[in-house]
């Protein structure tokens, strides 16, 4: 293709000829994007129509707690994740493969399960407190509150920083350091001037995930009794202060937007994106730890003990004691909770896959402002805390319900319209909004690999546009569609806040069951569902890793 044609091509596609934007596909994708964006509209609508005093908007303590939590957790995650990445990639640390896996594994434990086990271990009359009381130690620092929450969140989110930093280190071209050394630069200065600038984007993208997680997490602060925004929203929602909850949700969304803006400044630099051709091939620049080997091993062991040994140990104890606890509660575990979880997750996965195909295909094949906007819009779920999304959909369900009854007072037949609030379709819709980005991402990356020429070749060999899509594009993007759906399935299985807000009455899943146990105190019954969730999370990691190859 000539320079002029390459230049003119993308612009020309805005026009009207055959190779240009297909109207039907744009309308379909646009409708999906609009549906995904609608919860924000409901939230705004609710706030605008609020009758509550505006002064409630400012809840300085809660707001500051949330911001502080995000800052501490993000900072601590970088301090844990970056050294661990460096140790496992660039040094001669013994058993590097083992540590690499062990340090990434905490990601498979949902943080609310981590918090659960930490309360059980370190809480008042927990295992550790009991054991220490036996040897005369009367009090240990409380697990509840800010420091406990920050600790647990850090332990279960720092692997994001570890993984992204590790990827940057692995793709880093060692010959760049050698080039710097030949230019009379010391080892330390080479690290500062060459290595570090290349690592910043990787660290920043991991830190973004941590920050968004810390801000939006509901389960951990709730369990550890820390008054953050998500917790305040939950309390207001249950206390029928729904307008306040809506305003707090907007605050939460605003902070999310700020975090995203900061990250795009720091992390989105192209000069950091250089990927060397001899990435990770040379072993010459591996740092020898020498006398530091023992402290490094102690550090890794401590991290792994805190992240993995404690929760798994507690779950094991629960599991052993499970039989005795069940007698004391009416919360008997039923396998139907697991099948319910699977049912909604399959429905969410299928819905996401179907919605992702037109959006991803359009974004990958027809680059233009319109398609870019549609594509970005579907990513809103990424930045939308589950509790905010759940709340917005509660508003939607209720407003829909009252509209229906308004109409029914005039047209009685409207009483036969289905309700939405606390129904499965609304719950599944929430999952779609929340997890569509995973599906679109996976589908789009495989759609990008379908060269435009392939569909043109199919057209010239007698296929209509639809037949060309079916016979050529679809088989080629299918692996991405499946991977995306699998990811959605697995993340839906462990989703907590939206599920709690939108669960139909009497419809219990693994997650809502574990949550109910929290109140009963008979933790032993949570062992099986918790272990099931951990296995599910582990599988989702496998899917993510296989996608990244």
């Amino acid at each position, binding site marked *: 293709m000539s320079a002029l044609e390459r*230049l003119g091509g993308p612009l020309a596609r805005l026009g009207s000829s055959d190779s240009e934007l297909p109207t039907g596909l744009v309308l379909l994708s646009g409708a999906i994007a609009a549906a995904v964006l609608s919860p924000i509209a409901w939230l705004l609508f609710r706030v605008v129509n609020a009758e509550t005093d505006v002064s409630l908007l400012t809840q300085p303590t809660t707001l500051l707690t949330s911001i502080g939590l995000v800052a501490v957790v993000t900072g601590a995650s970088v301090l844990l994740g970056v050294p661990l990445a460096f140790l496992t990639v660039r040094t001669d640390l013994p058993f590097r493969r083992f540590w690499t896996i062990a340090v990434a594994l905490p990601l498979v434990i949902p943080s609310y399960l981590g918090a659960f086990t930490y309360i059980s271990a370190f809480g008042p009359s927990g295992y550790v407190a009991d054991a220490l009381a036996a040897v005369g130690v009367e009090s240990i620092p409380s697990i509840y509150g800010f420091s406990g929450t920050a600790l647990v969140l850090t332990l279960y989110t720092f692997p994001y920083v570890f993984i992204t930093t590790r990827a940057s280190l692995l793709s880093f071209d060692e010959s760049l350091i050698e080039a710097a050394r030949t230019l009379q630069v010391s080892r330390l200065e080479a690290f500062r001037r060459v290595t570090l600038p290349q690592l910043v984007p990787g660290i920043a993208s991991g830190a973004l995930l941590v920050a968004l997680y810390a801000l939006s997490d509901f389960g951990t602060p709730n369990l550890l009794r820390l008054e953050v925004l998500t917790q305040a929203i939950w309390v207001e929602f249950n206390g029928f202060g729904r307008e306040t909850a809506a305003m707090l949700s907007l605050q939460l969304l605003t902070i999310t937007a700020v975090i995203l803006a900061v990250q795009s400044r720091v992390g989105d630099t192209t000069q950091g994106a250089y990927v060397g051709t001899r990435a990770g091939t040379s072993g010459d620049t591996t740092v020898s730890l020498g006398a530091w080997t023992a402290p490094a091993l102690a550090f890794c062991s401590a991290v792994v003990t805190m992240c993995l040994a404690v929760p798994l140990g507690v779950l094991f104890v629960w599991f052993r004691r499970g039989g005795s606890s069940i007698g004391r509660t009416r919360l008997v575990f039923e396998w139907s909770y697991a099948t319910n979880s699977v049912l909604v997750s399959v429905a969410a996965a299928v819905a996401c896959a179907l919605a992702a195909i037109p959006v991803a295909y359009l974004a990958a094949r027809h680059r233009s402002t319109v398609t870019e906007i549609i594509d970005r819009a579907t990513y809103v779920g990424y930045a939308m805390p589950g509790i905010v999304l759940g709340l917005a959909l509660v508003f939607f369900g209720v407003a829909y319900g009252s509209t229906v009854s308004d109409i029914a007072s005039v047209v009685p037949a409207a009483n036969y319209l289905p309700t939405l609030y606390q129904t499965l379709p609304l719950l599944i819709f929430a999952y779609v909004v929340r997890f569509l980005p995973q599906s679109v991402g996976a589908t789009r990356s495989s759609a990008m690999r379908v060269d435009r020429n392939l569909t043109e070749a199919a057209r010239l060999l*007698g296929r209509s546009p639809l037949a060309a899509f079916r016979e050529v594009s679809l088989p080629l993007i299918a692996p991405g569609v499946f991977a995306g759906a699998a990811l959605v399935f697995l993340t839906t299985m462990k989703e907590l806040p939206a599920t709690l807000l939108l669960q139909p009455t009497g419809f219990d899943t693994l997650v809502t069951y574990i949550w109910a146990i929290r109140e009963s105190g008979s933790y032993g019954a949570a062992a099986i569902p918790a272990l099931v969730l951990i296995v599910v999370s582990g599988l989702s990691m496998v899917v993510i890793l296989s996608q990244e190859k």
Partner: protein
Amino acid sequence: MSRMTPTHTDESDAETDAAMDATTDAAMDAETDTAMDAETDTAMDATTDAAVDAETGPARTDPAAETVLDLDGIAKTYSAESAVQDLSMSVVDGEILALLGPSGCGKTTTLRLIAGLERTDAGTIDLDGRTLADPASGVFVPPEEHNIGLVFQDFALFPHLTAAENVAFGLSDRPESERDERVAELLDLVGLTDHADHYPEELSGGQKQRIALARSLAPEPDVLLLDEPLSNLDIRLRVSMREEIRDIIKATGVTAVWVTHDQEEALSVADRVGVMNDGRLQQIGSPESIFERPASRFVATFLGQASFLSARVAGDSLVTDLGRIDADRCAGLDAPDGSTVDVLVRPDDLRAAPTDGAGDGRIVRRQYQGPAFVYRVELSDGNTVHCLHNHTENFEVGEPVTVEIAADHSLSWYPSE
């Protein structure tokens, strides 16, 4: 039929390749680029004449053959930039027409317009008497109804299908036995019967190219289009592949339009060559006629290393720095007495000889090509010309030389700038 063998020997290929490099250099020279823009209008006139006239020289095509593909005044504009302007040409049954031009000249766009992958903004495209595109009356036939084969630059083989399934893709409307037979026939034609069950990623570049060709030929298209078919191949493979593709096309008798930016490729494979620049067809004719009688400075420089001698018309002769030339040697010279014209001289038209005196100029560059030398001579008036010499004739840079016109053919001339 079995696989064709290339007719060229390795030696002659090496020689032409070397000559080609020199040619490309000259064609890409910035100084000549400006010249051709000013020339466009004159060139267009020449083109129109050439396109309709029989004086296009000894074409390799049967003159009685019927027109298969006819483009009339087609144009395509991308966001105010015109890619193709007022292009008209006819392709006759069974010929190979090469569309030659630098990148960005609109040749690929022309191909995509014919294929129906882009819509023309103006003009008509007729294939076998059926109108495929005519925006004035709202006619646009979608690509799947064209019965045109296209070999893509990057081959565009379906990665999820085997070689045989790729070839069979365009035959889905035929009964299975007939389809299998046709696939076998084509795999045999391109010599890849053994690779029928291989996936594209298991094939080499040349093999992919042949499967792409077989896939396009399988449905027996009215016209086969080739978009820079050799540009994704290893340089060493290109010469043999182009002979092979030509032989396959000729064996099937299909009419072909072959787009390339490589003048040697165009001249060697085509029955007729159309030279494009800046969205316009500059000249169309047999390879010999466009090389020997380029219609414009652009065509002259694009097809081979070209220098221009300024000359003043003085009665029956032209006065140049290198002496007088008979006006008869310039075909169709009709410039008025006293006016100046530029005479095209290629390296093989000129001979330099060392001299003790001032001579006509000095050697300023020596380009060694193995079998030959090309000397760049700066003439006393500042013009430079190139002289081709055998590799045994070794002159030094800075040496004063006389230059004589040794051409034994008529010379082309262009109005002076």
